[in-house]
C-alpha cells in the first residue's frame, strides 16, 4: 500500500448554518494503488469531515451524478485522475445553477430545458407488430448523440446558459433535440424546428465550444447545433 496526501480547497455552503459560501482547505491520505480517481479522494474526505455533501452513484462515468467544477473546469470526479490535477485541487459546484449545499446544485432548470425539447420519439403512425425498424445507416446518425448522460457539465460551462437559463435550451438539451430530429422514426421534425426557431432557444449559441471542451463523454453539442441550423436553412431555401 502506497499512501499519498492530497490537498483540497473545497467550496462549502450550508444555507442553514453559513451566511455565505467559503473555501475550506483540507487534505486527505489516499491509497494510490486503489484510490486513483478524484471521487475516491472525495469519499475519503467525507470520512474526515462527514458534513461535506456531494452527489455520486455509479462511480464509473455513466450516471453523471458527480459532475463538478474541478480546478476551474467542469468534469466528472469519478473518471478524473488525481495525478492529472494540480494541487490543492479546487473543487466547486457546477457554475450557474443554484447551490443547495456544498457541491450539490439544483438542476431543476437544466431538466426543465431538457424536457422542453420533448426528448422522446413522436410518431403517430400505427405501431407495427414488433418494433419500428431503422436501417444501419440511419441508426449510425444517432451515434455521438444518444450517449449523453445529462451530467450538465456542458450546459453549466456555457455563458449563454448562465445568462439565460430560462430561455436558452443549452447544449445538452440541443444535443438531445438533434438526437430526435435525426431519428428516422420520429415524425415531428417540423414542429421540433419550429420550437427552436427563436432568438433565444437555439440561437443564443454563439459556437464558443465550451461544451465540447468539457464533455466527459467526448460528444460534440456544437456540431449538433450546427446541423439543426443547417436543417432550418434547408427548410427555407
Amino acid at each position, binding site marked *: 500500500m502506497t499512501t499519498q496526501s492530497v490537498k483540497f480547497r473545497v467550496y462549502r455552503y450550508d444555507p442553514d448554518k453559513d451566511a455565505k459560501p467559503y473555501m475550506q482547505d483540507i487534505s486527505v491520505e489516499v491509497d494510490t494503488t486503489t484510490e486513483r480517481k478524484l471521487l475516491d479522494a472525495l469519499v475519503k474526505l467525507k470520512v474526515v469531515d462527514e458534513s461535506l455533501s456531494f452527489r455520486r452513484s455509479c462511480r464509473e462515468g455513466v450516471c453523471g451524478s458527480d459532475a463538478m467544477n474541478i480546478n476551474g473546469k467542469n468534469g466528472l470526479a469519478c473518471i478524473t485522475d488525481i495525478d492529472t490535477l494540480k494541487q490543492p485541487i479546487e473543487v466547486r459546484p457546477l457554475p450557474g445553477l443554484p447551490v443547495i449545499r456544498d457541491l450539490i446544485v439544483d438542476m431543476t432548470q437544466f431538466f426543465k430545458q431538457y424536457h422542453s425539447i420533448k426528448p422522446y420519439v413522436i410518431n403517430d403512425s400505427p405501431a407495427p407488430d414488433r418494433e419500428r425498424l431503422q436501417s444501419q445507416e440511419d441508426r449510425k446518425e444517432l451515434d455521438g448523440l444518444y450517449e449523453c448522460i445529462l451530467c450538465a457539465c456542458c450546459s453549466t460551462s456555457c*455563458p*449563454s446558459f448562465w*445568462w*439565460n437559463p*430560462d*430561455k436558452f435550451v443549452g447544449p445538452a438539451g440541443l444535443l438531445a433535440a438533434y438526437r430526435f430530429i435525426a431519428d428516422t422514426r420520429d415524425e415531428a421534425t417540423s414542429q421540433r424546428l*419550429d*420550437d*427552436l*426557431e*427563436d*432568438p*433565444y*432557444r*437555439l*440561437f*443564443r449559441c*454563439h459556437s464558443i465550444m465550451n461544451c465540447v471542451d468539457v464533455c466527459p463523454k467526448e460528444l460534440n453539442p456544437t456540431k449538433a447545433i450546427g446541423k439543426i*441550423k443547417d436543417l*432550418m*436553412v434547408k427548410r*427555407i431555401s
Partner: protein
Amino acid sequence: MVKRHVVGAHYGLRDWLVQRVTAVIMLVYTLGVVAFILCANGASYEAWQELFACTWVKVVTTISITALLWHAWVGVRDIWMDYIQHVGVRLTMHVLTLLWLIGSLIYMVKVVWGVA
C-alpha cells in the same frame, strides 16, 4: 399581468442568416478596397475621389455599409439580449441602438452620394 414565460418569436434563423450574408458582403467589399489600394499604390486623394465619383462604386459602397449596419444591429442586439435581463432597460437599449444605426445610415448616404 399574468407572469408567463414567453419564448417562440420566430426570427432567430432570419437574424442568424442575415449576420452571415452581411459578413460575406463586407468581406468582398473589403477585399475590393484592399485590391484598389494595392493596385493604385496607396492611392492619392484624386484617385480616391475619381473612384468614389462612379455611380456603381457608390451603389456598392451603400450596399456594403448598409450590410455593416445591419450586421452591427444583430450583433449589438445579441449583446443586450445576453446581458440585460430587465425588459424595459433592454428595450430602451434596442431603441437607442436603432436610432444610432439609422443616424449612421443617413450620414453614410449623405457622405457617399455627396462625392461629386
